[in-house]
């Protein structure tokens, strides 16, 4: 086993001694592990969302549901930037705009089919991410916030003033997806169920893309890259000391955030069939940020809840629409003051799993013993450690 695994680590001059004991295998099952429960919950949510059009296929429902899904995608992208990498991006909507405009221009002005616009969108977003990220990511986090805001405005104003972007009225008549002469607009019938309008069909496409997006962002957040992002967020210097090139880690977070937003932008452009610069104002950047912050930075379920709340609340509570920005503003302050980790914090542990601690391993079971006396002695020493007062003096020096 150990030899198979060794190949996965590059040549490292110093390897750890084998663990002293084998850890118990992580519990499986829906209710016995966080992971299992979240998977089950996620699956359930996807099924429920997929069932929705069979219950209510009115254009309105489908339209707001699609918008909400697109919001989820956007928020997952911003979550990579803000939640994982800790970079406050106030111009995130700019990438959304890049995605929407690139696909719009590709299909209307240049006349390519929509599926060809997808790689173009992704490429454009990567480039945009680098262009915006490269000069700004060396800056301190608060400068970054303002500069990204400025970039967001630059993109919007530019789109508003150029001819190719249709100027202030934007681009309209964006076609939908089509393959070999068959397009979504045609719709089709399966097993007596009619998928009549492209709206309904489109909902499913959006759903698939978003599920992939959510899972993908979650997976990236758990791997090597994700750990690097979180390390940069928690302590940039320490991350650098751990051999992480923080600049590259930040840029990669930026690019991935940009690509997510770009795909969301393309979905939006196809969904609305028209885009205008007005949809890319700072307000929307702030709304997405609010969704991420309210839901819980870095937490996938939290961000999804936040995205759904921010996008659906004004639709569901009509009187709320008028007050929403005020309420969101107050909520932001209140959440930051009293629950900075958000509604569903990234570090949340399901309540019934909280008390679980691993059973202390019997020392006789120790494998690969290295100075076998050593671990037996140290725990007894360490017992007296709890509540050590020394931290105060240490922290006081820097705080």
């Amino acid at each position: 086993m150990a030899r198979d695994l060794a190949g996965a680590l590059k040549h490292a001059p110093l390897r750890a001694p084998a663990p002293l004991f084998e850890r118990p295998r992580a519990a499986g099952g829906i209710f016995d592990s966080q992971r299992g429960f979240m998977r089950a919950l996620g699956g359930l949510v996807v099924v429920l969302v997929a069932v929705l059009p069979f219950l209510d296929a009115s254009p309105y429902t489908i339209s707001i549901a699609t918008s909400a899904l697109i919001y989820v995608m956007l928020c997952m992208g911003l979550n990579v930037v803000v939640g994982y990498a800790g970079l406050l991006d106030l111009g995130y909507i700019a990438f959304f705009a890049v995605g929407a405009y690139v696909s719009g221009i590709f299909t209307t002005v240049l006349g390519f089919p929509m599926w060809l616009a997808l790689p173009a969108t992704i490429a454009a977003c990567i480039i945009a991410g680098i262009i915006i990220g490269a000069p700004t990511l060396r800056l301190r986090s608060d400068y970054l916030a303002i500069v990204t805001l400025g970039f967001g405005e630059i993109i919007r104003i530019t789109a508003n003033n150029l001819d190719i972007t249709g100027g202030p009225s934007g681009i309209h008549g964006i076609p939908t997806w089509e393959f070999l002469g068959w397009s979504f607009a045609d719709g089709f019938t399966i097993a007596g169920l009619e998928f009549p309008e492209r709206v309904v069909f489109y909902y499913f496409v959006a759903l698939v893309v978003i599920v992939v997006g959510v899972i993908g962002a979650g997976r990236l957040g758990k791997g090597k890259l994700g750990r690097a992002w979180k390390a940069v967020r928690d302590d940039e210097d320490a991350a650098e000391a751990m051999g992480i090139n923080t600049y590259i880690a930040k840029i990669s977070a930026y690019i991935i955030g940009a690509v997510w937003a770009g795909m969301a932008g393309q979905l939006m452009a196809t969904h609305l069939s028209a885009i205008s610069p007005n949809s890319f104002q700072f307000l929307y950047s702030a709304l997405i940020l609010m969704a991420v912050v309210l839901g819980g930075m870095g937490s996938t379920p939290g961000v999804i809840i936040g995205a759904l709340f921010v996008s659906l609340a004004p639709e569901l509570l009509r009187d709320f629409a008028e007050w929403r920005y005020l309420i969101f503003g107050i909520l932001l302050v209140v959440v930051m003051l009293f629950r900075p980790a958000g509604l569903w914090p990234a570090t949340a542990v399901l309540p019934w799993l909280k008390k679980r601690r691993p059973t202390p391993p019997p020392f006789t079971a120790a494998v690969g013993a290295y100075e076998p006396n050593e671990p037996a002695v140290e725990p007894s020493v360490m017992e007296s450690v709890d509540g050590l007062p020394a931290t105060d003096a240490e922290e006081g020096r820097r705080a």
Partner: protein
Amino acid sequence: MQFGSRRRSRVLQIAVAASVLALTAGCSSGLASGASADSGDGPIKFGMLAPFSGSESAFGAYMQNGAQLAVDEINEAGGVLGRQIELVVEDDACDATTAVSGANKLVTEGIVASVGGYCSGATLPTLPIFDEAGIPMVIPAANSNELVDQGLPGVFLINGTGDQQAAAAVQYAEQIGAKKVAVIDDATSYSADLADAFTAQATEAGLAVDVTATVTPGENDYSAVATQLASAKPEIVYWTGYYQEGGLIARQSADAGFEGVLMVADGSVDAKFAEIAGTGYTENVVGTFTQTPDMIEGADAWIADYTDLAGDAPGPYSTQSYDAVRVMAQAIDDAGSTEFDAVVGGLEDLTDFDTFAGPLTFTPDHTLSGGGFVIVSIDPASGVFVLEDDLQG
């Protein structure tokens, strides 16, 4: 633990199954059922998209009240096809995203006709939605040429288009004997369109367009453009944006030493214009505008009715919205049906229908035959725009 979790997951499975069953059983408007169409009885629903939030939110109420007044009047007179009219209003926030969801909501609520649309940028994406749902549109305020350029059969504009307004502006410029003109827009769809149309027509008419500038709405400082005007000294400047910036431009350009005429487009024709510009800055201001009730003789009764309903005096686009409802109702009445083709036919067949903007007949591309634009100027005493020249002579 083992036992407990198994039981719980069993419970969960049952719950899921039950909820799915319940949901599918209760399925009424799902995929299997057809789209909601007009049921043939009950009130006829007219939908209206207007801005009630965002930067243009002031205009939403003006439009809604104007339309509501027409609805009330028609209902009192017995309705259309023997049925009452009901007005359903949704917010479009002057933004494509909100507008699309609003349009879809209206379609879902079963409207048979749309009488809304203020911002061109927000109205454009709603066109295919209404078109797909077979809903004819009479658009009261948005007037970008792009709306009709798409050639959708159900789109009718009853506000004069940019071309017509620009024509009025050029006509006035020629009347006062201007040779050098300038045009400023605020980079919004409506304004940029109008500015382009004005430039084209003015050039055609042999006027020199000296300065074309764009300003960013929402800023306060327009000294750059004011200085430009003061040094280029055009005889007439056409401002195609809204009154917030218009007032500031009037003031700042006068301060900078500009002495020509400032002509403003209909977005700027509002009582607030004079307030923002301040006293003493409005003498040289004229506007191109469709007639408002207070300019038409005998419209006092209408204004009184409106004020009764809204608790406030009518504002921009109140009359157009009022007319949009009446036009639509008339077309449905003529057609004798709420079917899309019939109503469109009815709209196309309208001749010399009496509206505030004069007798209305749609051109083949579904715009007004005559724009109905007049020149207004500011009454120094009250600060409101009053009729200056009806451009008929």
